[in-house]
Each structure stands twice: as structure tokens, then as C-alpha cells.
């Protein structure tokens, strides 16, 4: 119970306290104090009617107690900040801006991306350093050092605790969305908790910045991709979109994702996340309308062109104009280092009746994730069997019956 409230309210409480105390470390200490007190009181007296408000008020009082007891330099400063403001009343309310301030501070472009991710999970997600370290397969002391260093930079360099002015907002928001999407993608084939955490952060952002279509676009994208999680992995093995058991898709997430996509369409202010969400919404409504997918990728190429987007587009082109055309487009891309480039080539080659073995081996050499490597090994075995059959039966027409695959699975 307290754990749930902790995860749900930690970010809000630390954000409010950071504004009051002017220091993130002090805010974290105070909020942790308050939760320790809650762990003692609540089982006896019951959970208060507004647990979040209780935590924030208690944390504030704890901070004042602590400041009165101790007299280290930085705390004197914070005390000054705290006492300048009047008591209780409005200050301990959750000003919606507080978490926004915190998000923009955590995702400040002067911090390394890894540091932005770690701070966001710690300060807004309420994850412990140990949890973050485990999620990113980094030793805990390394992660602890990363967080301490980032907080040290925030304090010493005075990274401001505020929402950027309008002129800077588009760029700064892009950085925030990139951090949340990175957290989501870390969870894509691995930790479900990270995927869920990214969606939770996405919901917070949508609630705090309801007029930013890309915020909703990212939320919809994450919901739609995550809706297929159960179907995407079978015993740790990747199942491609076309082969997935659709009854295992999460219908609620599909519905919510599609709903948000429709809302974004009405805004008519498309951006990369909204378009990717729209593509996934099409996939979530089988049978996939590949012409629509190609059209959406065309839009995506127009506003955010990249070889990776072109590769995904080619996968859809294979369905509308055939594998030969798709292969021509794929071969024109400079993506030799990317495993999916070779995996897509392999698929197109086998659909054209050619031997995909070399392409699959190239993909396997470059793939890092165990589940992706397993998938490639399975396809290599199938390709070998296929070649044997061919040699035996002289059957030139036996194609891989596997219909379209989408790398976004």
C-alpha cells in the first residue's frame, strides 16, 4: 500500500519540496523521512484521506525540523528560502507546474542523456538507484555516481528549476519526450517495469501539457506498442507482428491508444511521435491497411527523414508494391551497421525466392539483444531447411509464406 503510494506520489512530493527548499537532495531526504513516518503511522492509524497532501505537509515539517537542528551552510540557504514564504496554505498544494519544472530540470540539455534518464526515473518515477541500475544493467555504484554527479551539476551550475520560456519550449520538450521514449524502449524487449514507468511518465506529461500534440502522440505510441507486449514475446522469443496471437493484445491499451491518435488527427499538427502512433494504430486494426501505412511513412519522411524510417517504410512498400521494389529501396540505404537492415533484406530476399542466409548472418553479427539473436538463429535454421528442400525438390517457387513483417512489431 505504502509502496504504491510511494511510486505514485514520490515525484510530486519531491517536486513540491524542491521548490520550497531550493535543493533536490534536501527535498528527497524530507520526502523519504515523511514516507518513513507514514510506514510507522498508517498501519496503526489508517491511511489519511489525502495521502499525497499528508506526505508533502509532513515532508515540509520534517525539513523545517531538520533545518532547525542542523546548521550546515547549504541548509541555511534553503532555510532562508523556506522561511521567506508564508506557512502551509497554498505552498504545499500540488502546483501542477512543480512536476513540469522537475521534468525540465532532469532533462536539461546540459546533462548527458544517460544522466537525464537516471534523474527522471529517480526524481519523477520514484525508482530507487538500485532499481535503475538493474534496469540498465549497470553496477549500482556506477548508477549512484551518475546520479550524484548530475545532481551536483544541477546545484553548482544552477540549472534552473522552471518551465522553459515559450521560445525554448519546442526544443526542450523534444528532449523530454526523447528521454521518456528512451526509457520505454529500454523496456521494449526487457523490463516491463520500465515500459510501464515510461507510460506513466507519458500520462503525467499529457496531464501537465495537454495542449502539446506530440506529448499525446508519444503516449499513444507507447500504449499501442505496449498493447502487443504479451503477444510479442513467447517464452522470451520474439513473435513478429503478422504471427502474433491478437487475442493476447491488450484491448484496453489498443482502444486508448487509438482514441488518442484520433484526437491527435483532429489537432492536425502532426509530428514524429503522432505519426508513429498513427502507424501503430493502423497495425492495431487488422488486416493492416498497408497503403495507409506507406502514406504515413511518407509524411514521417517529410518531417523527420532518416534511413531507419526509410527502412521501415520499405517494409510497408513490400506489401503494396512487392518485395522487389522494397529491396531496391532498402539496398539504397546506408545502414550496413544496423541489424534490422540485414534482417529486412533477408526477409525480402527469401520472398523473392533467393537465399537469405548471408543477410541473416550479417544481421546476427550485428544484433545485440538475446531475444533478437534467438529470432535470427531460428530464421537461419528455417533458411537452411528451405535451401535443402529446394535442392531436393528443385522447387524454385517455394517462397517463405510469411506475410509482411513490421520491424516495429
Amino acid at each position, binding site marked *: 500500500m505504502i509502496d504504491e503510494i510511494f511510486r505514485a506520489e514520490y515525484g510530486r512530493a519531491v517536486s513540491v519540496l524542491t521548490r520550497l527548499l531550493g535543493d533536490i537532495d534536501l527535498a528527497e531526504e524530507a520526502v523519504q523521512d515523511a514516507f518513513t513516518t507514514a510506514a510507522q503511522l498508517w498501519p496503526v492509524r489508517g491511511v489519511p484521506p489525502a495521502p499525497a497532501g499528508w506526505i508533502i505537509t509532513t515532508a515540509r515539517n520534517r525539513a523545517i525540523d531538520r533545518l532547525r537542528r542542523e546548521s550546515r551552510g547549504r541548509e541555511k540557504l534553503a532555510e532562508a528560502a523556506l522561511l521567506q514564504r508564508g506557512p502551509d496554505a497554498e505552498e504545499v498544494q500540488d502546483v501542477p507546474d512543480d512536476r513540469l519544472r522537475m521534468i525540465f530540470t532532469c532533462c536539461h540539455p*546540459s546533462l548527458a542523456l544517460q544522466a537525464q534518464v537516471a534523474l527522471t526515473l529517480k526524481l519523477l518515477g520514484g525508482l530507487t538507484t538500485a532499481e535503475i541500475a538493474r534496469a540498465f544493467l549497470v553496477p549500482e555504484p556506477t548508477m549512484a555516481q551518475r546520479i550524484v554527479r548530475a545532481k551536483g551539476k544541477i546545484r*553548482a*551550475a*544552477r*540549472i*534552473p528549476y522552471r518551465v*522553459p520560456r515559450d521560445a*525554448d519550449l519546442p526544443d526542450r520538450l523534444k528532449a523530454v519526450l526523447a528521454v521518456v521514449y528512451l526509457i520505454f524502449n529500454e523496456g521494449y524487449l526487457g523490463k516491463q517495469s520500465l515500459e510501464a514507468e515510461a507510460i506513466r511518465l507519458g500520462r503525467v506529461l499529457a496531464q501537465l501539457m495537454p495542449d502539446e500534440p506530440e506529448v499525446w502522440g508519444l503516449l499513444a505510441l507507447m500504449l499501442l506498442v505496449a498493447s502487443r507486449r504479451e503477444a510479442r514475446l513467447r517464452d522470451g522469443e520474439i513473435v513478429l507482428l503478422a504471427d502474433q496471437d491478437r487475442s493476447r493484445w491488450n484491448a484496453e491499451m489498443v482502444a486508448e491508444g487509438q482514441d488518442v491518435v484520433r484526437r491527435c488527427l483532429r489537432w492536425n499538427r502532426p509530428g514524429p511521435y503522432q505519426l508513429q502512433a498513427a502507424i501503430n494504430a493502423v497495425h492495431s486494426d487488422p488486416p493492416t491497411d498497408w497503403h495507409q501505412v506507406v502514406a504515413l511513412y511518407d509524411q514521417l519522411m517529410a518531417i523527420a527523414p532518416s534511413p531507419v524510417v526509410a527502412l521501415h517504410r520499405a517494409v510497408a512498400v513490400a506489401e503494396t508494391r512487392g518485395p522487389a521494389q522494397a529491396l531496391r529501396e532498402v539496398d539504397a540505404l546506408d545502414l550496413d551497421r544496423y541489424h534490422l537492415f540485414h534482417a529486412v533484406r533477408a526477409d525480402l530476399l527469401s520472398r523473392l525466392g533467393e537465399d537469405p542466409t548471408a543477410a541473416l548472418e550479417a544481421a546476427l553479427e550485428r544484433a545485440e539483444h538475446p531475444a533478437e539473436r534467438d529470432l535470427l538463429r531460428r530464421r537461419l535454421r528455417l533458411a537452411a531447411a528451405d535451401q535443402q528442400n529446394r535442392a531436393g525438390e528443385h522447387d524454385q517457387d517455394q517462397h517463405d509464406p510469411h506475410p509482411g513483417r513490421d520491424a516495429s512489431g
Partner: protein
Amino acid sequence: MTQQISPKYLLSIYQPDGEAPPPEVLDPIMANLAALNEEMQAKGAWVFAVGLHPPSTATVLKAKDDDVLMTDGPFTEGKEHIGGFTIIQAADLDEALEWGRRLAKVLDPLSVEVRPIAFG
């Protein structure tokens, strides 16, 4: 806002060792730099700014036992060294970075490092 509580930042300019660019390249840059310095002064951000002689003119000292060792040349090896710096005061890092951005544009393609000053 008083000078005492306004944070200060060191804007270091890193430039490649070797010959300075010819006057037709350098002169407009120096004119732009002077204009930026004036604007910093007008806005109350400017504290101090210097340009340095080449790193080959530097001498490094290090205490060892009772002695102080002396080495000819700059402390760090490498092909780029600090060629000058500006000290500014700013409300926060965003404001300092904005001045740093302006400086980097004037001095393109040189890098500018923005670093908070702890005391002094």
C-alpha cells in the same frame, strides 16, 4: 540583484595551436567579439575577459618536496588549448549558456566551455 549572490561562469575558448588566421578572417571575428563584449557590459553580465598568448609561451610549475619544478609549455598535451576566456555573471545556467552560445557563434568553429565559478 547584487554581485555577491549572482553566480559567475567561466567561458573558456578552446582553439587549435598554431598560426592565427589571416587578418581578413580574424578582423571581422574580433570586431564581432568586441561588440558581444560591449553588449555583455551593457547588460551587466560582463565581469572580465582576456585573450592569451600561444600555449608555447606558457610555463608550468609544480611543487616537489622543497623545490618547485618548472616545465616549458602548457600543462595539457594536445592540439587545442585555452586561447582566452570571459567571466560573466548570470542568473542561472540557461542565461550563461545563452551568452556562451552567442560567443560560440562569433568564434565559430571554436568550442566554448561554460563552467560555474565556485568562489572568487
